[in-house]
């Protein structure tokens, strides 16, 4: 893994050329894109689950207090 990192294409950033950098870093970029996808969908998923639970608990509490 470290070997891969050291041999990776970080230096190509110095090319100051976006398409070249993307081309050279291809395989690693797949990983990064997947990680970004996990980040976006993951945070959304957590807020949906926790938000839903919070709403249900609020409703339950109000119903309980009204009795």
């Amino acid at each position, binding site marked *: 893994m470290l070997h891969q990192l050291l041999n990776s294409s970080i230096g190509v950033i110095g090319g100051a050329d976006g398409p070249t950098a993307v081309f050279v870093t291809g395989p690693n970029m797949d990983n990064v894109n997947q990680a970004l996808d996990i980040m976006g969908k993951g945070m959304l998923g957590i807020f949906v*689950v926790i938000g839903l639970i919070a709403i249900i608990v609020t409703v339950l509490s109000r119903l309980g207090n009204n009795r």
Partner: protein
Amino acid sequence: MEFLWEGLLSITWQQVVMYLVGAVLIWLAIKKDYEPALLLPMGFGAILVNLPLSGVLNQTMQGVGETQGIIQWLFETGIEASEAFPLLLFIGIGAMIDFGPLLSNPKMFLFGAAAQFGIFLTIVLAAVLGFDIKDAASIGIIGAADGPTSILVSQVLKSSYIGAIAVAAYSYMALVPIIQPMAIKLVTTKKERAIRMEYRPAGVSKTTRILFPIIVTFVAGLVAPASVSLVGFLMFGNLIRECGVLNRLSETAQNDLANLVTLLLGITISFSMQAERFVTVETLMIMGLGLFAFIFDTIGGVLFAKLLNLFSKSKINPMIGAAGISAFPMSARVVEKMGIAEDNQNHLLMHAVGANVSGQIASAVAGGIVLGFFM
């Protein structure tokens, strides 16, 4: 007489490093009281599995064939085959938690969600650093600040770094009182830290307390099915606690079960601390990434509280957001202590406890969501 020296001469320098790692973990557990229930068995286990031809691991002997080692068997049975140890521990944790402060102030739920930000940012950073996506996801879960979740996710994803991940998760949980104040001060002003919050808890009925674990399991199971083993076992423990008719089982889950599983989990996880796998540069990188995850969990929670303050009339002390990580109750205590340091009448403990127990649920959900991406 050669057999007397054979063991000594076959010790590698990597094994010597692991003896030192084991000694440091034992020292942290005894001298610093850092998560002793986990770090001490892990430290001792690190020495045990790294002795040459250690009998706690499977070995092939001349004329006998393969012999079974107890730690390897415990690992293969209790973690690898079924994830039973971390899941059983969740029953005990669920039975220990009083969700009352959260149920009486449901707004606190949101901070549990926001403080998982570090997990996802770390996954991205680990991927950028060249880790395989499954390893990156396992490393990110250190930010769940929840040992059993970290172990379970890294095991299910077959990460080769499970030992380093477990050590990082438990070490940083113990270091929350040092890490969090630093991260909080980085993104808050003195004035913000001194914001007072009134505590007016709404009453929580017994019905709500009983329905809560069932509802959480249902919602998490439907939206993020992969989280259902983690969340389900956590909530099962809580239902035993709250139902009021299983006091003996609740006591057993909180004490005997939790203690027994903790005892076995620590020493079992040391199987993954064998020198050839553990003494690598990647382990150091994982320790760094784990710290990054904890810091950005804290920052994520604090910034979310600040965001809410833009739209809310009654201001929230942004430090409450930091308590949304799962490290319970250390994180809530840190926030209380920092609040008092700014204003000796500023008691934030009950708000922080609400956010902190929300973090317990959110971290398990986060673990399940991360697993869901690979199913």
